């Protein structure tokens, strides 16, 4: 075996504050030149910490307490100053999760690409330009020359992540560390970015260390995998072996948490009443404000007609920018329509009087994507859930308290009334958000990506909870998501949205088995978790 490119031995990371357990303990692993290695684990498992320690970029508040980091035969854990900077960037490249903030918005792309080349390679301007253009072409940016003079805000998230990738690979590092590089992207861009990353690292002979929580990506793009649980390495091996026959219970739990269909849901009776009916809805965003008048508005939802029957779960699927979130908000009257109508039980929600509106607000609820911003930080959980009952007429304070505690019990948070949001985990917060939505016993819930901010195991728990509540309560649900695996698990019917228009619609089984529209087929092909469930299905 050749000498490893990177060898980490017995790495231990602790918080600066004494008395806390170590964040990472006894971690040892090696990366061979050109190898593709994945580190998986849930949030808090220390996977990001482990990789940040390699180029010595740990956040303040934590430090490396023990262990060595040997890169190309040299221990870089003690390097300082110029010696360390020569390794960073030139030999070890990093791509971060958030493409929106990892490029400097004030500088054109060309300047940002040139930075590393000038610093580490000392090339002439003409040479730098030629190499930048060449690399941008390789990451498949159209008009590579024009791109140099443009600014980050002119590119979408997927494009920015490609530019980021280009800027890192320009230096032809020997190791590329990619920390959840595609988590912020939708399924289609995710696939494109990862495929480029794998192809280019192969070409350049760069080793890839991919940090992710998505087992689908691991299966598709890496050769070897490390599984971290609470700062400890619990399993290591060839990707195919680990996924097919996990040895550690935690790995098995991660694999078991992948969304999949369990049994078939009872079909919605054909004569079930229509609860929500969206007719030819159009929603505009105002154009850029000009000097004297705003530019032309941008149509985000363009003539969507859609029905949700009582008790039905309809999944609204599409890539980012397809207008799915906007449509969901418009359905609850949170975004004004530019045309068409939204009817709830036959009543146009725009024309509701005061009492009608109050009833509608009680009957139709929303679950937000981000459990961190959707709960008011200054209130206690009991108050947050109770706030949903404020407009419930004829309810005494005691009854209200009673209802709050019942509801919290139902979502598995009995006795949490006096806590505050910051004392709870993401999964618990999302349960609070669900409790708030169901407290008024609504008949329709619009859920906007309710699990996409959560870890897989938590995702599964929350989805199961939603399904259980839906079965018991029988509310209808408009479930907005970009994750087809989740759709397969819970939805009765799928509506696929592309650029504000419905391109395909049908029962979940039909759409998944025989996708008609090219866009749906691309979405299905790009869904790594689905590919994985197929691989694992025979076992």
């Amino acid at each position, binding site marked *: 075996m050749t000498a490893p490119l990177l060898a980490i031995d017995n790495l231990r990371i602790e918080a600066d504050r004494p008395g806390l357990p170590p964040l990472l303990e006894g971690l040892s692993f090696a990366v061979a030149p050109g190898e593709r290695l994945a580190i998986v684990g849930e949030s808090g498992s220390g996977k990001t910490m482990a990789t940040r320690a390699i180029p010595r970029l740990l956040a303040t508040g934590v430090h490396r307490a023990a262990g060595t980091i040997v890169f190309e035969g040299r221990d870089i854990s003690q390097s300082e100053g110029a010696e360390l900077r020569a390794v960073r960037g030139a030999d070890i490249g990093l791509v971060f999760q958030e493409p929106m903030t990892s490029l400097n918005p004030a500088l054109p792309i060309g300047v940002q690409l040139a930075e590393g080349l000038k610093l580490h390679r000392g090339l002439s301007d003409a040479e730098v330009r030629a190499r930048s253009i060449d690399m941008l072409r390789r990451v498949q940016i159209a008009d590579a020359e024009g791109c140099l003079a443009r600014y980050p805000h002119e590119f979408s998230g997927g494009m920015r992540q490609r530019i980021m990738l280009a800027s890192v690979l320009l230096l032809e590092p020997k190791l590329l560390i990619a920390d959840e590089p595609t988590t912020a992207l939708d399924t289609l861009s995710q696939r494109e970015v990862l495929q480029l990353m794998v192809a280019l690292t192969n070409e350049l002979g760069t080793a890839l260390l991919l940090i992710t929580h998505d087992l689908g990506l691991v299966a598709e793009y890496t050769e070897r995998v490390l599984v971290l649980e609470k700062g400890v390495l619990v399993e290591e091996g060839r990707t195919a072996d680990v996924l097919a026959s996990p040895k550690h219970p935690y790995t098995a739990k991660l694999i078991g948490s992948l969304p999949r269909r369990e049994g078939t849901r009872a079909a919605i009776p054909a004569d079930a009443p229509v609860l929500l009916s969206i007719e030819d809805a159009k929603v505009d965003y105002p154009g850029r404000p000009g000097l004297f008048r705003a530019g032309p508005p941008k149509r985000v939802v363009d003539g969507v007609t859609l029905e949700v029957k009582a008790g039905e779960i309809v999944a609204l699927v599409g890539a980012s920018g397809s207008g799915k979130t906007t449509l969901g908000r418009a359905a*609850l009257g*949170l975004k004004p329509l530019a045309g068409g109508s939204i009817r709830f039980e036959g009543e146009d929600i725009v024309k509701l009087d005061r009492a009608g*509106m*109050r009833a509608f*607000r*009680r009957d*139709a*609820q*929303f679950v*937000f994507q*981000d459990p961190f*911003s*959707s*709960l*008011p*930080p*200054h209130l206690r959980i009991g108050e*947050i859930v109770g*706030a*949903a009952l*404020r*407009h419930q007429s004829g309810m005494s304070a005691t009854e209200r308290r009673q209802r709050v505690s019942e509801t919290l019990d139902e979502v598995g948070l009995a006795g949490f009334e006096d806590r*505050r*949001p*910051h004392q709870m985990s993401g999964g618990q917060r999302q349960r609070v*958000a669900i409790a*708030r939505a169901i407290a*008024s016993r609504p008949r329709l819930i619009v859920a906007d990506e309710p699990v996409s901010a959560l870890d897989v195991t938590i995702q599964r728990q929350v989805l199961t909870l939603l399904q259980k509540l839906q079965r018991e309560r029988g509310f209808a649900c408009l479930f907005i998501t970009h994750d087809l695996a989740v759709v397969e698990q819970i939805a009765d019917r799928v509506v696929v949205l592309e650029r504000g228009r419905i391109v395909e619609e049908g029962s979940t089984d039909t759409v998944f088995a025989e996708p008609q529209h090219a866009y749906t087929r691309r979405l299905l092909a790009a869904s790594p978790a689905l590919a994985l469930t197929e691989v694992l299905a025979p076992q």
Partner: protein
Amino acid sequence: MRRSAHSILGFGLVGLLLAVIAIGFVWLPYDPLAIDLDHTLAAPSFAHWLGTDAFGRDVASRAMLGARISTLIAVETVALAIGVGTALGLVAGFLRGWTERVLMTFSDALLAFPGILLALALVSVLGSSRHSIVIALAIAYLPATIRVVRGAVLSIRERGYVEASRVAGDGALYTMWRHVLPNALPPILVLATSLFGWVILSESALSFLGVGVPPPAPTWGNMLSEARPYMYVASWLSIAPGLCIVAALLGINMLGDALRDRLDPRDRP
């Protein structure tokens, strides 16, 4: 650790200020208005701890009475500016649209004048009294408050819980009061404590220009401006009120920071 040292110092200095004001109500070393032409510009001594001024008045007594008047003016002005500014900023930032445009045009128009010039003009119209100074300074500092509050509200109104409150069927007023205002408090508090300092300084500037609190009543500001001609012969005249202002501002600012930290829900059980 640094944080608690700050808050202890803040509480200490503000406590001292309040104690001095309280003592001033029952006891002052001398009558702060009594003129004694035999002992003008006396250096600090056992008889006159901080010396005497050009009219032989006891500086320590005047500083103690000045603490009461200056603090009162500052507190009233800050309360008025913050109260009105918060209400307007909250409404402008939350409702947007026409309400915002009208309010912000009004506030920008005020902002177009230098604060002190505006206050000067207002005092000349309203007459030189404590109340008119409070009103004038409050109006001068109003636009800054509106801008700060509106800015905070603009970011808070986009958070999920504000929309959740809308989904629950809450009215705009209730949402503003229950969800937006509590989360906008930290920047408002910081602004209020800095305003306190600006007001004390502005009051002294107004006194300097001759439209401040009318003599013979002492404020730290007019004591400073009266001391100016004697800077070289009787430096204690400017040092005493100067130190008072520094101590009060330091205390209030540290107290404000401590209060803001306490407001953070993450620090509450």
